[in-house]
């Protein structure tokens, strides 16, 4: 078990080792990198300031918003804005987003993993052709194809359904998922497959019992990455859905903005509420996500 969790992430592990050596040398021999540190903190300020503004403003009442200093926290924090957002069908949009996200991330991961496994372990022109097609998909702004997708969805009588969002989202997640997953699958030592084959294991069984456990961190990383994309997706919902019954969160932010227009604190409260679920996932899985993404793209 220990080896299965360690092996798929050789890149960060191998690379982390040299850093202490490097650091001890550089700090021992010369001044610390003041300029770099300064830049790092400056970027943090740029990142955090808008987030801070959104959070404090969402806790102000409307009068407070117009009178108080915009960058100072409210003197009397209130949750009224959150209540207002929750009363405006937030729960329904939340559930829609959840259905669309789970409904596209799970099947997307499954088909991408099977394809990546076939591409890495299999042979033949068909598979390399498939792989090249997926790589090409990374280079094409796929959103340019929304008009035919809109046509297909309306012809299939799926307009204004959640399925209309799920199906193209699965397809659009495939190229990047296959790329990252196959990068990790290449690192699983061939000897392990050979020894399982000698034990009489089929390729199908090896996929589930060897390849999947060995690349679990990558699967989780890709899963979270796709989840971010689908959860935050805006273009498909805008074009393929219409009614409040099928509205997802990013679209609801946009409509809240129209409905509440002058009530900026309430609009910003909806921003906070829509982001909160992802924040929770990030806090729980940040190590996994960051190490997986840094390793996944740099191979």
């Amino acid at each position: 078990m220990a080896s299965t969790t360690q092996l798929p992430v050789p890149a960060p592990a191998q690379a982390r080792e040299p850093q202490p050596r490097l650091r001890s040398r550089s700090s021992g021999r010369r001044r610390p990198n003041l300029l770099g540190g300064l830049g790092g903190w400056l970027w943090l300020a740029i990142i955090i300031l808008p987030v801070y503004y959104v959070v404090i403003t969402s806790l102000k009442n409307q009068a407070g918003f117009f009178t108080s200093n915009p960058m100072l926290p409210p003197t009397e924090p209130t949750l009224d804005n959150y209540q207002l957002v929750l009363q405006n069908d937030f729960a329904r949009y939340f559930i829609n987003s959840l259905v669309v996200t789970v409904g596209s991330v799970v099947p997307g991961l499954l088909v991408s993993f099977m394809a990546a496994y076939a591409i890495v372990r299999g042979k033949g022109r068909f598979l390399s052709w498939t792989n090249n097609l997926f790589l090409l998909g990374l280079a094409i702004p796929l959103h340019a194809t929304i008009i035919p997708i809109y046509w297909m969805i309306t012809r299939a009588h799926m307009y204004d359904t959640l399925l209309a969002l799920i199906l193209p989202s699965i397809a659009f997640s495939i190229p990047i998922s296959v790329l990252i997953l196959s990068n990790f699958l290449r690192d699983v030592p061939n000897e392990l497959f050979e020894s399982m084959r000698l034990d009489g294991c089929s390729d199908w069984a090896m996929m589930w019992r060897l390849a999947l456990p060995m690349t679990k961190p990558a699967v989780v990383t890709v899963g979270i990455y796709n989840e971010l994309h689908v959860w935050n997706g805006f273009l498909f919902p805008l074009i393929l859905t219409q009614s409040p019954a099928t509205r997802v969160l990013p679209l609801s932010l946009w409509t809240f903005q129209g409905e509440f227009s002058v009530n900026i604190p309430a609009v910003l409260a909806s921003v906070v509420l829509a982001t909160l679920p992802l924040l929770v996932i990030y806090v729980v899985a940040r190590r996994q996500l960051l190490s997986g993404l840094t390793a996944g793209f740099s191979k």
Partner: protein
Amino acid sequence: MALTTSTSRRVRSRQLVGSGPSAWLAAPALAFFLLFAVIPLIGVVVLSFTSWDGLGEIRFDAVSSWARVLTDPVTGNALVVTAKIMFFSFIVQAPISLLLGVFTAAGQKYRAALAVLYFVPLLLSSAAVAIAFKALLDPNFGLGPGLGLPALAQDWLGNSDLVLFVVVFVIAWQFVPFHTLIYQGGVRQIPASFYEAAQIDGAGRIQQFVNITLPQLKYTVITSSTLMVVGSLAYFDLIFVLTAGGPGYATRLLPLHMYLTGFKANDMGAASALGVILVVIGLGLALLLQRLGGKNRNASQLEGA
């Protein structure tokens, strides 16, 4: 020629022995991709030669959509806006991401903590980012009066000279974290022995950066730049919510122009022609960037594996 046939025969005989999984495993992914990416890609070319209002009948219309698109000055303007946003967001994002990637790749604890916080913008949807910045940039209730700096209390989104740079800044705010991660991963793969050798030779920090880090990051730079440039052809939602393309046509870039032409002006033929232009530009830029790298993407990946 002879070589390729002999290898493919070898491959086929190996498959018969049963080494390697069936290619059918790739079929579901391929089916999804063909149905919702490849067929629409063909569809967008076909539709560009038709006229369609989005509801009624689709009629073959030869090149009239193309004629409309290519003679419309708004298209030219959209191309210029797209090129500007692409160019400026590249020259802003690439150096910042590279430097932050190098910065966070080092082992210090505080840098790892900063890296965790740097990721936060990626959690927000483009709609959320746009709404947040709209409020933040308000000249009366936003950042300017908040910090007491009148210079920051501009009509950022209403001034057509400024708005493009505001958009570039917000794009950088949202996407630099992602590219920082890519560079961070790239830097971590550089063997430490290179730096040790350089230090023995007495190379300074900047010399090491220029002579080791940069050349070693060649493929990372290509990957990141490709995603950045192709990605800038997809900046739709952020700009749609932030400025809706305005003021006037100042931020109406190609994807937004496509959406507004198709779904607001109900001219799906012209919008499809704009879609084709988008695809061609994206593909051309991606191929150009790969060519600049000297090798194709596959080869570099196999090398790293």
